[in-house]
């Protein structure tokens, strides 16, 4: 048992143990999560395989067909008469790619900053907290409008800009955990054996920190999808006619009262991904173990 309140107790599934092949035992909620994400991935993978559905082909005369009315457009069409099924599918691959890239970048930058400031403290921490607060206070909108005044928008730019500005949450949480971990003997033990700081951070701090990073990342996915959408609205990110979930939802809102499926379809797929990510992430965290307050210890 450890002193750290935030270190998942060593019993049972540590992430490493959970991932080690023969011991892998998925929790039911994680199975559900994997299925949900699997559906989304399948959807985006399926599209290129299924011919005849064109996400770009417009036909204003067939605009706003409701779902299940036309075999050529199983899920109906959008205001431009484009096939919704293939658009949702294409949007899935586009958005998944962008979102995952952003979340990964955020988690990487944020966790690094958090661990470094938690581990070293002092001036390093002070400098990084100035940086974090600056990034926080800076409206992303201003940043993007300014950047797009200089370089032309693209998905890569979005990934870079959002990926480098939305990380402070990770930094905050991991900083506190790291500072607590730092007082544990097992973190300093490798130092006495000649390991450098990098070693002990990567082997003993990171593994104890990343489940928390994962929780934030899982809940952040939804936020990032929506941020990406609002950037779309500023003309940033992937350019139409290439769709993304966020853009489809934002655009569909105008038709909310008359053609709600324009929002519901991408929303549903997004729900699958977002909720799926949550459930999968639970696999790796303490709550996954269902570690509820023990009933006085008796089983």
């Amino acid at each position: 048992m450890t002193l750290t309140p935030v270190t998942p107790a060593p019993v049972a599934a540590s992430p490493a143990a959970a991932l080690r092949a023969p011991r892998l035992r998925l929790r039911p909620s994680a199975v559900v999560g994997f299925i949900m994400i699997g559906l989304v991935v399948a959807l985006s993978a399926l599209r290129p395989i299924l011919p005849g559905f064109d996400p770009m082909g417009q036909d204003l005369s067939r605009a706003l067909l409701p779902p299940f009315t036309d075999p050529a457009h199983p899920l109906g069409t959008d205001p431009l008469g484009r096939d919704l099924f293939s658009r949702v599918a294409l949007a899935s691959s586009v958005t998944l790619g962008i979102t995952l890239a952003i979340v990964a970048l955020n988690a990487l930058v944020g966790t690094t900053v958090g661990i470094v400031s938690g581990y070293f403290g002092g001036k390093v921490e002070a400098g990084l907290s100035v940086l974090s607060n600056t990034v926080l206070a800076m409206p992303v909108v201003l940043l993007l409008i300014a950047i797009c005044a200089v370089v032309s928008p693209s998905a890569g730019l979005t990934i870079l800009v959002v990926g480098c500005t939305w990380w402070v949450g990770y930094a905050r949480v991991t900083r506190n955990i790291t500072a607590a971990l730092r007082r544990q003997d097992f973190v300093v033990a490798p130092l006495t054996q000649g390991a450098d700081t990098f070693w002990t951070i990567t082997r003993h701090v990171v593994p104890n920190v990343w489940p928390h990073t994962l929780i934030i990342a899982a809940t952040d996915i939804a936020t990032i999808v929506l941020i990406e959408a609002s950037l779309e609205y500023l003309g940033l990110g992937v350019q139409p006619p290439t769709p993304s979930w966020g853009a489809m939802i934002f655009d569909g809102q105008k038709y909310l009262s008359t053609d709600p499926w324009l929002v519901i379809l991408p929303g549903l797929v997004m729900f699958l991904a977002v909720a799926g990510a949550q459930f999968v992430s639970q696999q790796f965290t303490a709550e996954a173990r269902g570690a509820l307050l023990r009933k006085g210890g008796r089983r």
Partner: protein
Amino acid sequence: MLPFLLRRLGLAVATIFLVVTVGFILGRLTGAPGALLLPDNASAADVDALNAGLGFDRPVIVQYLDYLGGLFVGDFGDSYRRHESALGLVLERVPATVELAFWAFVAGFALALIAALAIQLTGSRLLRAVVGWGGAVRQSVPDFFFALLLVLVFSVLLGVLPSLGRTSPASLVLPVITLATGQFVMYLRLLDAALSEQAEQDYVRTAFAQGHSRAAILLTQMLPNALSPVLGMAGLNLGGLLGGTVVVEVVFAWPGLGSLLTDAVSQRDFPIVQAGLLFVALMFVLVNTLVDILVSRIDTRTAHS
């Protein structure tokens, strides 16, 4: 205490200096506002004259120094569009923003706390599943969309709550629900995870061995210990809320800072942008400092000597 405060103050000043500087640079990148201020038929010469009148023809460094000078005496200049003190316009929005942020934060955090405690206390996996699914659904509904749905139900169909504006306490309800439920999920998961970890700690066993009840252990021992990682996130969110919440402000026509700032950014109304940035930076620094102090009081181990 004094050196501590002084150091904090130094950091705050550094942060704010950085924010206003970066804000200035970014602002200048987006171009001069003249063309946005004059009607469509104004000539390019008029636009140039206006830009010159606003000082945009001077070298950037001069503009920057001038702006820093103004900052020192608390003068951000007048809004280009409203011809009023930019700081005044920003401050005018503060009460509405603080009101919304405060209640949204309190409601979101309290809800998550209650849910997390209920899950731990009842030990009910069903409850956890229900709350988890509910949270996931809410997460995948954009705030904008969720707000519209609330309006549809409570204003249009039931007619019990106002759909927009800030005229009575009832006006707060829908925006607060929108924001609070949006944050709820994050808090809940962090709390639940942190509490679950605490549940496995030895000191909990000690407490059980003394005969404490589960509720008492949960509330007086595990909860304080579980709070520190959550508080960091909470401070962040509160700071964000205090900086304004554009989407909700737009949907509910709530006169907050977020929409003022966003509009000012897109309209290149730099005096407002800069006064707003300063305020937002102040809020972040303030809230985060408070949270840091709180966390280090709760959890002395996270403090570096």
